[in-house]
């Protein structure tokens, strides 16, 4: 895809949620995540001519975002003067295998869970891409953002019955998509 087919006007609507979920699990700070996404879009805009069309627009933006995240951590570490490595071995006199004890560390399990949940989150956002724009927006508002029925009906000027029909179709499509890609 030549760079002329990039559409920066659509980037926020199409990719910001995906990029946000990708970033937040890595930086764990909303403000930082938002800044990094903003910087990514601006960098994408400046380097449009480098887009060769070998990957999708989203993959290309993710590759820029990855570099931004790495730069962010480099900046933090250079501010601190050194990388922070935290290791604690609770009892110096303890006998037994250090490695085995590390393997059963409950925090390792948490890290795995976090990774799996992140992948799940991105799979969900991929499936959301398969819905039409209105359906996806309404589904997100109701299911992810927790807006109540009345607020969504007012926003889109629809009746509660219409809303539930849209939600029903969206849920079926999401379940089918995740059945193929996740279950």
């Amino acid at each position, binding site marked *: 895809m030549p760079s002329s087919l990039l559409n*920066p*006007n659509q*980037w*926020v*609507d199409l990719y*910001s*949620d995906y990029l*946000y*979920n990708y970033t*937040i699990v890595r930086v764990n700070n909303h403000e930082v995540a*938002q800044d990094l*996404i*903003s910087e990514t*879009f*601006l960098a994408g*805009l400046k380097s449009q001519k480098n887009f060769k069309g070998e990957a999708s627009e989203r993959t290309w933006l993710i590759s820029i975002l990855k570099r931004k995240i790495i730069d962010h951590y480099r900046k933090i570490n250079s501010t601190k003067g050194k990388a922070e490595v935290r290791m604690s071995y609770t009892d110096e006199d303890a006998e037994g295998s250090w490695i085995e004890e590390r393997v059963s560390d409950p925090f390792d399990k948490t890290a795995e869970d976090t990774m799996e*949940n992140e992948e*799940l*989150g991105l799979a*969900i*956002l991929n499936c959301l891409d398969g819905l039409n724009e209105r359906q996806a927006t309404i589904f*997100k508002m*109701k*299911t*992810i*953002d927790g807006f109540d*029925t009345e607020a969504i009906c007012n926003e889109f000027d629809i009746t509660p019955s219409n809303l*539930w029909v849209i*939600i*029903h179709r969206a*849920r079926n499509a*999401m*379940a089918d998509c*995740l*059945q193929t890609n*996740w*279950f």
Partner: protein
Amino acid sequence: MLKCEEAAHYCDKLQYNEASPWEKFTMKLHHLFCRICKEHSIKNTKLTRLLRRSGVRTLSSSQKEYLKERLRQEMSN
């Protein structure tokens, strides 16, 4: 007896804790006789669990507007 369409509607409402106890009861009763609706309900509940577990989040419309504005400014320069 509840129709399948109504059972599916109550099932959707239940995913958002918006089904009344009566709706929940009639839906469960329907599931005793309708295997297809019961399977649909299991799938629907599984989707809810996955959505919760993922912790997926979205940017608010004002945050998206801020991003769009920054992009617009950059494009106009």
